[in-house]
């Protein structure tokens, strides 16, 4: 739902870093997005493509690596990986007390510039 403002943040961050490193064109940008981050990768790519034409990222490809949700159960001490976007219970013991250890990432990793 807020992919457009996230896309604008990405464009601002990479444009500034590209200019600061003395380059004039961004060829690709690599992101890491957790499945529980509330962001839909397709919608983010759509939004990024919509706002990039007037920028130094006009030809840039946005690549997204999705990170699965992993957690650690406080009750049974299991580490787990799930494919769902949100977890309601520990998949092993069904307990509701757990910590999310990955899956909420919203990171820019690197970019190709020329």
């Amino acid at each position, binding site marked *: *739902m*807020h992919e457009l*403002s*996230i896309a604008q*943040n*990405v464009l601002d*961050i*990479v444009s500034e*870093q*590209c200019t600061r*490193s003395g*380059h004039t064109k961004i060829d690709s*940008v690599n*992101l890491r997005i957790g499945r529980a981050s*509330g962001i839909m990768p397709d919608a983010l790519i759509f939004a990024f493509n919509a706002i990039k034409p007037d920028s130094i990222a006009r030809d840039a490809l946005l690549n997204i690596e999705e990170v699965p949700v992993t957690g650690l159960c406080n009750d049974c001490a299991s580490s787990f990986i799930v494919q769902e976007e*949100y977890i*309601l*219970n520990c998949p092993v013991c069904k307990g*509701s*007390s757990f910590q999310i250890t990955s899956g909420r990432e*919203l*990171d*820019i*990793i*690197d*970019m*190709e*510039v*020329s």
Partner: protein
Amino acid sequence: MKVKVVTRILEANERIALENRRLFDNAGLYVINLMSGPGAGKTSVLEKTLALKTGLRIGVIEGDIAGSDDAERIEKHGAPVIQINTGGACHLDANMIYEVLQDLPLQDLDLLFIENVGNLVCPAEFKVGEDIKVMVLSIAEGHDKPLKYPLMFQESSALLLNKIDLAPYLDVDMNKIKKDALSLNPDLKIFEVSCKTGEGLSAWTDWLKEKALRS
């Protein structure tokens, strides 16, 4: 050539949220991010909270896509209020709050409510510098909401279950709402209230006073 970036996309928001938090702490101000879907009764909860004369000096920031109806309602209770129109954005972010803070008498307040845009999805994703998040769910929205919108329930410290006066007219299972909400968040404090009849509101304001004065 490859350039390392390694930046958290929401880092800018979190940096400003921390700055807001510093300003709140300096003013000795307790801050609540109030969230719900549209029409659950956030503004009514605030009106009732102000009318109950808690002894707390309360300020309000109203977030809406458009319009100033909510700010006008709050102003009638004599509380300092600022309206933010997001012009389409589905949530308030830290910068929107930072921009209006100079228009509020922070030093003269004990408690600040930030009434977020009515939406069960995005408000829980963006920190604004609050101490806690509180959500309102009206029972008319149905008992399926906790499991459909888990993040809101997981992030909140308290849930106001509003419009309980409507229970006789609705096919809604209040126990299921409470059970599912607590399974998502065992520490969630639940208040059953009716802004129409006033039922349950004093338990809420007592809890609020304890939170705000302890900060």
